[in-house]
C-alpha cells in the first residue's frame, strides 16, 4: 500500500508512456493489415485509408473497446489474489506493456511476424507465472482466449466463404452482372452497418453511459443500416462506369460498383481493429490506473476513465501518421490480386468476426482473422493464387511471440521490483 501511495504518480506517468508506446506500435504496424485489403483492391487511396483509419480506429477504441480492455485488465490474472501486494500488479502490467512494445519494435525492425495481441497476452501470463505464481493466472480465461485465436480465423473464413458464394450466385451468375450488382449493393451496405451497429450496441456501449435494451439496439441498428445503404446507393450512382468491348460480361464495372462497398467495409474494419487491438495497450494501463487511484484496491470496481481509451486511440493515430502510412503503402501494393468484390467479402467477414470478439471481450489477432477470411474467399474459388505458407508463418508467430513476450515481461518485472521494492 505504501509503495503505491509513495510512487503513485510515477506509476501512472510510466503506464501512460508505455501504453502510448504500445499503441504507437499497433498504429504503426497492425493497422496496415486492416487497411491493406481496401488499399490493395484500389477501392480507396492510401490517403483516404489513413483518414478512414484515423477516424474509425478512434471511434472503435472509444465506443467498443471496453470489453477487451476489461479482459486484459482483469480477465487473465485474478486480482483478488493480489489484495496484499497491489504493487506487484502495477509492476506486472507496466512490464507487460513495456515488454510487448519492445518486442513489437524489435520484431518489426527485424521483419519477424508478430501479433500485438499474442505478445501482450504472452507478457501478462509470463510475468504472472514467474512473478506471482501460476495460481494467480485465470487459466480458464487464458484457455478461452487461446481458443478464440483458433476459432476467429475459422469463423472469419466461413463467413467470407458464405458472403462470396452469395455474391457469386446473386451477381456473377446473373445474366446482367452490373444490374444485379446495383440491385444488391444497398442490401450489402445495410448488412455492414447493421452488423457493426448491432454488435457494438448490444455489447460495448455500457461504459459510454448508454445502456440500451435489445429491442432498442435492434431498431437503432436497422435505422443505421438503412441510412448507410441510402448513402451507399447515392455513392454508387456517382460511379462512372466504362463500357469496354473486351469485357463482354461487364465484370470490370461490377468491380467498380464494389469499390463503393469497400469504402464501407474499410470503415468497419478500422472500427473493428480499434475496438479490439487498442485494448492491448489500454488494458494494462487501465489496470495500473485503477489500482493507483483506488489507493491500492486491486478490485478497483471503478470504470475505465474515458481518457484512457482516448489515449490509446490517440497513440494508434500517431503511430499511423508517423510510420503506419508507409506500411500501408507496402502492404497495399503487395496485394494486387485482390479485387473489390473479393476484398469486400474478406474484409466484411473479418470485421464482423473482430467486432463480435470485441463485444465478447476476447482479444484476437486482426491479421490472423483477415488471413482466415481471405482463405475463405479462396476456398469459394475466388482467388487466383494464395500462398498457404502463411499458415506456417502464423504458427511461427505463435511459437515465437508468446515466449518472447513472456520472457521480456519477466525480465522487466524483476527490474521494476528491484527499483521500487
Amino acid at each position: 500500500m505504501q509503495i503505491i501511495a509513495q510512487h503513485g504518480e510515477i506509476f501512472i506517468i510510466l503506464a501512460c508512456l508505455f501504453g502510448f508506446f504500445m499503441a504507437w506500435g499497433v498504429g504503426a504496424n497492425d493497422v496496415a493489415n486492416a487497411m491493406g485489403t481496401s488499399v490493395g483492391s484500389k477501392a480507396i487511396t492510401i490517403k483516404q485509408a489513413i483518414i478512414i483509419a484515423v477516424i474509425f480506429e478512434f471511434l472503435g477504441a472509444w465506443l467498443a473497446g471496453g470489453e477487451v480492455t476489461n479482459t486484459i485488465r482483469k480477465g487473465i490474472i485474478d486480482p483478488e489474489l493480489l489484495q496484499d501486494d497491489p504493487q506487484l500488479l502495477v509492476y506486472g502490467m507496466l512490464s507487460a506493456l513495456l515488454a510487448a512494445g519492445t518486442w513489437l519494435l524489435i520484431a518489426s525492425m527485424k521483419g519477424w511476424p508478430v501479433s500485438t495481441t499474442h505478445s501482450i497476452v504472452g507478457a501478462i501470463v509470463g510475468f504472472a507465472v514467474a512473478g506471482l505464481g501460476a495460481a494467480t493466472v485465470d487459466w480458464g480465461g487464458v484457455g478461452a482466449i487461446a481458443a478464440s485465436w483458433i476459432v476467429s480465423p475459422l469463423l472469419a473464413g466461413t463467413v467470407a466463404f458464405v458472403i462470396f458464394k452469395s455474391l457469386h450466385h446473386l451477381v456473377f451468375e446473373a445474366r446482367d452482372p452490373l444490374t444485379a450488382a446495383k440491385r444488391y449493393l444497398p442490401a450489402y451496405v445495410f448488412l455492414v452497418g447493421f452488423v457493426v451497429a448491432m454488435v457494438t450496441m448490444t455489447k460495448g456501449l455500457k461504459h459510454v453511459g448508454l445502456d440500451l435494451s435489445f429491442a432498442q439496439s435492434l431498431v437503432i441498428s436497422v435505422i443505421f443500416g438503412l441510412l448507410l445503404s441510402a448513402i451507399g446507393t447515392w455513392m454508387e450512382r456517382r460511379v462512372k462506369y466504362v463500357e469496354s468491348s473486351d469485357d463482354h460480361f461487364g465484370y470490370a464495372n461490377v468491380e467498380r460498383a464494389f469499390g463503393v462497398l469497400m469504402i464501407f467495409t474499410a470503415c468497419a474494419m478500422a472500427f473493428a481493429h480499434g475496438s479490439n487491438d487498442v485494448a492491448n495497450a489500454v488494458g494494462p494501463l487501465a489496470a495500473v490506473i485503477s489500482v493507483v487511484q483506488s489507493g491500492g484496491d486491486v478490485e478497483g470496481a471503478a470504470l475505465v476513465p474515458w481518457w484512457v481509451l482516448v489515449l490509446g486511440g490517440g497513440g494508434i493515430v500517431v503511430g499511423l501518421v508517423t510510420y503506419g502510412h508507409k506500411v500501408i503503402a507496402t502492404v497495399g501494393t503487395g496485394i494486387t490480386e485482390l479485387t473489390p468484390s473479393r476484398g469486400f467479402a474478406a474484409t466484411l467477414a473479418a470485421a464482423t468476426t473482430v467486432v463480435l470478439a470485441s463485444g465478447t471481450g476476447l482479444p484476437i489477432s486482426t491479421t490472423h482473422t483477415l488471413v482466415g477470411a481471405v482463405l475463405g474467399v479462396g476456398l469459394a474459388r475466388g482467388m487466383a493464387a494464395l500462398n498457404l505458407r502463411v499458415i506456417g508463418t502464423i504458427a511461427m508467430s505463435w511459437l515465437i511471440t508468446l515466449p518472447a513476450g513472456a520472457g521480456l515481461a519477466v525480465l522487466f518485472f524483476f527490474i521494476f521490483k528491484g527499483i521500487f521494492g
Partner: protein
Amino acid sequence: MVTSNPFSAMFGRSPFQPLLAHIVKANDCADQLLPFFEASLQGDWESAAQLRENITRLEHEADVLKTELRLNLPNTMFLPVSRSDILDLISVQDKIANKVRDITGIMLGRKMRVPESLAEPMRHYMHTSVACVAQARQALEELKDLLESGFGRNVSDVMQNMIRELHTLEHQADSQQVEIRRQLFALESELPPVDVIFLYKIIDWVGELSDRAERVGSRLQILTAR
C-alpha cells in the same frame, strides 16, 4: 519488412497470367507459318529465313514463360484449379510453338517447295490449322473472365462453345489432310522420292499442330471442370 508481412505474403502470383501470355506467344508463333509458306512458294528464302528467325525467337520466349510459370508454382500454392492440370496445360501449349518451329525448320533446311498443284489445298490446310491455334487462344482467354466471376456458369458456357468450335475446326483440318494426301499420292511418281517423304512429313506435322491446339482445348476443359 515486405517479405515478412504474413498478410501480403499470402497473395501469391497468379499462374494464369503467364499461362495466357504463353498461349499468345504460341499463337504469334503459329501466325508466322502462313507468311513463311508463301515465301517458300515464291522461293524467297531470304524472307523465309527472316520469318523462321521470328519463330525461333517467339518459341524461345514461350519457353521462358513456361519455365517461369513452373518455378512460381510451389506446392504450398492454393489455386482454384488443380495445380497439376495447370502444369499439364502449359506443356501442351508449349508443344504448339515447338511444332511450328519443327515444320519451318525442315522446310527451310531442305528449301522445300510444295508442288504448284498442291499449293492451294496446302494453303487452306495450313490456314485451318493456324485457325485452330487462334481458337485455342480465344478459349483460353475466357479464363480471365472465368476467374473474375469465381467460375460462373455464364462464362464457362461461352468457353465450352469455343472449345466445341475448336473441335469442328480440327475435324475440318483432318479431312483436308486426307484430301491432300490423296492428291500427293497421285503425284508421287513424278516427284523425287525423298521430297515426297518429307512432304508427307510436313502434312503430318501441320495436322499435329491442329491436333495440339485441340488438345489445349481438352486440357482447358479438364482444368475448368469440377
